[in-house]
């Protein structure tokens, strides 16, 4: 029964993928879209069933299909583990997934390759599910690389544009760098405990005496590198903003709600490993904090509506890692969920805007859309409030938890985090004001076509907005349903629970004030004085640096890519030719000797006889000498 459920869960999206790949074109756009959506919806239903089961029984389900890879000291089977964590993830992956599928039916309707789009989306969901429910690290790795592949395909969906293809390639390769880390981590763990299976691993580690902690920390570090790749943390974050080249639903699904949270998922999964590697946890926390700050600063000045959202995603992920670093896994998970809601909503909203403006993404050419597309406006407003941490929206609770935890562990990181969230509030409302208020700054022709998007687009927006509003209820400070739900997963007694004392309340207040402050600044700057960001060329000073993302891409190019390429040229032009010349050289030498030798063969009998006699004398005299 469980097996069948699990299989249905996994295979329906795959089925959808196959159907769309092979028959999609002939089925026509709407049908293929419907198929894709239904496939995911089914998985969602199944996940609901599973969720129900888990909550009732309270223990996970293990499903083993067959042996996959045999290695002398560890045997890896293809199996699934459906426990609280994975089911939780399933819920929002498939849930939001189906919403976004729905949205895409209308959004992608003008694209001639719509069936492919849905095929890829389904494939993504399939791999994402595999990633989430895999019962050991290697199955997770299937999903891990699979989603990477899908993001490659979807970023480069409009493959005629080589820049998009570059972005896709970049995403894949940066992920691969992380994946190498993940692999190495697996190797170490496999060597140490000769298993990659979560359950076994947990018990083994729990029971283990005198662990080789340094080695384990190294493993944890490698795993974290993997997480960095997937979840766009410093130093491997630069691919995510570029990934916005893909269609907006993709950005919403893959690069905001689900795939990028895989890193957090993995760390949470292996909490029992990370708990032992405290120094690595510090590293995680620090990197998370820095990432959130850096990304936020960059976000301040971006003018591409999707870029802003992208950097905000990076910064939010940073916050999550901050929480992870402090071992507050459930807090991170909480934020993952709420973030999934409002960020998906924001992206879809921006998509709706872009749709309405026929592909315009630059906020400098927007404005005054409030009247034209009210639903989009309201939903996005709600989400912005949520992300800015305005009280009683979901983001408020989750972000607050994180900052609380940070405060309890290290003040500096807390400060960094708070600053980041203030900035968040600022640039989100900068976005809102620039997009929806004032007069429309686009072309007449665009203005003429301004319209609210269709139901298929607005319905998901509304649903997500609702979730973004009330999502916080699942883990209210004080009595948190989520914490209890997740409790069985964690080795250490969870530490998200803070009895609400005065400090907590003051901190909350500070956070709220910070958020409001950010909004206020944005209001003054972009509503009262209604200035509009400069055109690219006359951006100057610090903002220029920020606008160019601290030139990180350029640096990476100069430090890593360019050397490799020039090395490649060098090898090709010199080493290769040199080596083959070496081999040919031997032949040439022989030929040269032959050429000289030919001169010896003069054809004169006299010489021949002379050499003959010489040889004779040489031999005879040798005989004499030898005597």
């Amino acid at each position, binding site marked *: 029964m469980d097996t069948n459920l699990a299989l249905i869960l996994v295979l329906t999206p795959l089925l959808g993928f196959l159907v769309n790949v092979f028959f999609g074109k002939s089925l026509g756009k709407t049908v293929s879209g419907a198929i894709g959506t239904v496939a995911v919806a089914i998985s969602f239903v199944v996940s609901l069933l599973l969720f129900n089961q888990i909550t009732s029984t309270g223990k996970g389900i293990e499903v083993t299909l067959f042996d996959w890879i045999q290695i002398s000291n560890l045997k890896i089977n293809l199996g699934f583990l459906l426990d609280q964590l994975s089911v939780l993830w399933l819920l929002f992956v498939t849930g939001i997934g189906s919403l976004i599928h729905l949205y895409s039916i209308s959004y992608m309707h003008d694209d001639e390759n719509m069936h492919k789009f849905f095929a890829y989306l389904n494939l993504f969901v399939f791999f994402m599910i595999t990633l989430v429910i895999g019962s050991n690290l290697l199955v997770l790795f299937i999903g891990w690389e699979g989603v990477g592949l899908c993001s490659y395909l979807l970023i480069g969906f409009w493959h005629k544009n080589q820049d998009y293809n570059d972005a896709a390639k970049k995403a894949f390769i940066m992920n691969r760098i992380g994946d190498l880390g993940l692999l190495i981590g697996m190797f170490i763990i496999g060597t140490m405990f000769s298993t990659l299976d979560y359950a076994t691993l947990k018990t083994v580690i729990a029971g283990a005496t005198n662990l080789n902690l340094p080695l384990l920390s190294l493993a944890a570090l490698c795993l974290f590198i993997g997480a960095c790749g997937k979840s766009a943390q410093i130093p491997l974050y630069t691919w995510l903003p570029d990934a916005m080249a893909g269609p907006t639903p993709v950005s919403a699904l893959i690069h905001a709600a689900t795939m990028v949270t895989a890193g957090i998922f993995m760390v949470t999964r292996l909490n029992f490993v990370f708990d032992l590697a405290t120094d690595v946890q510090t590293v995680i926390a620090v990197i998370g904090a820095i990432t959130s700050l850096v990304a936020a600063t960059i976000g301040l000045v971006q003018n591409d509506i999707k870029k802003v959202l992208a950097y905000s995603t990076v910064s939010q992920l940073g916050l999550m890692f901050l929480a992870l670093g402090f071992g507050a896994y459930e807090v991170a998970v909480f934020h993952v969920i709420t973030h999934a809601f409002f960020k998906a909503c924001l992206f879809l909203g921006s998509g709706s805007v872009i749709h309405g403006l026929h592909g315009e993404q630059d906020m400098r050419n927007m404005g005054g859309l409030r009247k034209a597309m009210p639903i989009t406006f309201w939903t996005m407003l709600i989400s912005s409030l949520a992300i800015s941490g305005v009280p009683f929206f979901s983001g408020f609770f989750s972000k607050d938890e994180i900052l609380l935890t940070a405060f309890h562990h290290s003040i500096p990181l807390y400060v960094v985090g708070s600053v980041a969230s203030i900035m968040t509030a600022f640039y989100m409302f900068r976005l809102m004001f620039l997009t929806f208020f004032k007069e429309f700054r686009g072309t007449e022709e665009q203005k003429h076509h301004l319209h609210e998007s269709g139901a298929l687009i607005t319905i998901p927006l509304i649903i997500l907005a609702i979730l973004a509003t009330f999502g916080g209820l699942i883990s209210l400070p004080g009595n948190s349903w989520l914490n209890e739900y997740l409790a069985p997963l964690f080795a250490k007694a969870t530490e998200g629970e803070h009895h609400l004392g005065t400090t907590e309340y003051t901190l909350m207040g500070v956070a709220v004030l910070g958020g409001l402050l950010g909004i206020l600044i944005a209001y003054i700057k972009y509503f009262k004085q209604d200035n509009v960001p400069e055109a690219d060329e006359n951006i100057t000073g610090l903002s220029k640096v920020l606008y160019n993302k601290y030139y990180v891409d350029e640096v990476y190019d100069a430090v890593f890519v360019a050397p490799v390429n020039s090395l490649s040229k060098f090898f090709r032009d010199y080493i290769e030719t040199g080596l083959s010349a070496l081999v040919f050289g031997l032949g040439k030498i022989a030929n040269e000797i032959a050429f000289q030798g*030919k001169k010896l063969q003069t*054809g*004169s009998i006299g010489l021949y006889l002379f050499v003959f006699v010489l040889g004779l004398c040489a031999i005879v005299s040798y005989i004499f000498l030898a005597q």
Partner: protein
Amino acid sequence: MGNILNQIGIENYIFLSVVLFCIGIFGVLYRRNAIIVFMSIEIMLNAVNLLFVAFSTYHQDAQGQVFVFFSMAVAAAEVAVGLAILVSIFRNIGSISIDNLKNLKG
């Protein structure tokens, strides 16, 4: 007769014929006229024949002298062929100097 030989001693014969043989060799090496080269080769052969005879008396055994007849016959046959070739060469290039025979080389 035999006693005289014994007094002379075999070494001298060997030296003599070695000298003759070398003369032959030098002749072959230094002369360019084909006929003279033939003759030098004949000298070599005859030097050997001489030595054969000497040895045959030294060993008191006739085989050596018999062998001389073989070698003379062979030498004659050889020279016959050689001269034939020489004649055809002379017909073709009108000279019998072996220095003109350098077309085949390399």
